């Protein structure tokens, strides 16, 4: 099952990197479920909202997707990112933990669903400029496409893409600073 998963994930990732938005959203949903399983087991002691780490990891996967090598398996790359974000979150809370990388193979396979973090969306959006805020909100909360958002806000599609990209990078930076 793992081998088949991996082949499918790699296929979707390659399509995503070629600009296929549908394949990209698809692979992100699957990875979110796998990362959730990975993080849950390691935050069982409490104190950290696992969904925060899932979201940190997804943002990092997105902003660093060019560090996946198309000839390499997807999951070791994803779990290395999740592990880095998990250790970072614990470090910011002033706690040291050992996240055993070898345990990944046996324990990480179970996808889990439940998808709300304790972070308040309004507060997340607060850190953005007004232009970025309306673009990110239109696309994420309202589920609009790039084209619809451009029409709605009277912007060019390119400007929407730029605002979205910068907004997401700003959110990632913000998540990297706060004690989650």
């Amino acid at each position: 099952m793992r081998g088949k998963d991996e082949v499918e994930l790699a296929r979707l990732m390659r399509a995503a990197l070629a600009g296929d938005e549908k394949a990209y959203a698809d692979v992100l949903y699957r990875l979110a479920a796998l990362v959730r399983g990975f993080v849950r087991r390691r935050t069982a002691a409490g104190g950290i909202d696992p969904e925060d780490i899932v979201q940190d990891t997804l943002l990092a996967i997105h902003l660093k997707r060019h560090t996946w090598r198309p000839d390499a398996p997807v999951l070791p790359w994803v779990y290395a990112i999740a592990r880095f974000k998990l250790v970072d979150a614990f470090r910011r809370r002033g706690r040291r933990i050992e996240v055993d990388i070898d345990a990944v193979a046996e324990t990480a396979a179970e996808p889990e669903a439940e998808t709300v973090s304790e972070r308040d969306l309004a507060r997340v959006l607060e850190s953005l400029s007004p232009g970025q805020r309306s673009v990110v909100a239109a696309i994420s909360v309202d589920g609009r496409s790039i084209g619809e958002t451009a029409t709605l806000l009277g912007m060019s599609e390119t400007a929407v893409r730029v605002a979205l990209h910068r907004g997401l990078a700003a959110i990632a930076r913000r998540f990297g600073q706060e004690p989650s």
Partner: protein
Amino acid sequence: MRTDDLIKALGADAKPAPLPQRGAWRLAIGLAVPVAAAVFFVILGPRPDIAAAMHTARFLFKFVFTLALAGGALAVLYRLSMPGAPARRAAPLLLVAPLLMAAAVALEMAVVPAGDWTTRLVGHNMLVCLASIPIIGAGPLALFVAALRHGAPTRPGLAGAVAGLAAGGLAATFYAAHCTDDSPLFVATWYTLAIAALALAGAVVSRRLARW
């Protein structure tokens, strides 16, 4: 905040795909070599007797050492910039240059009388060496740290130190064409110190700049 909402936003940001990390390294290395060469030719230039020096084993060994160091460091650095890449498996490549140097030092001590060791170690150019290698290597180090920033090093400090080794190996390759102290005793001491300074600088800078 709902993770599904976040995914919608990430999915819409699929285009344009960023420059692949491999391409970023090609670019960084492709720029680092001419940058180091330019600084070298402006501040030093090759020694006048370089044609004759090329026929001596000690002179040539300097390049074997510096190129082995730069090559091994770049191979490890490339992997350290990408999560999950097998950096540990490439780590022995970092040992090639020090082992070659240890053998060369042993050989030098075997063929040169003990009374001359100090003279050869001190040489004539240690201050030029200590200053020039970091100056020539600064540009390449900046380029390598920029490539690390583009990537996702899970150990930014370590990656920065290895970036410093790579920049130091590259800078020392140019510097070796200028320096008239060819004894492995000199190279093992002063080149190593100068390259270590770049490694330290790389670690400090990357810990701050290559976080993600």
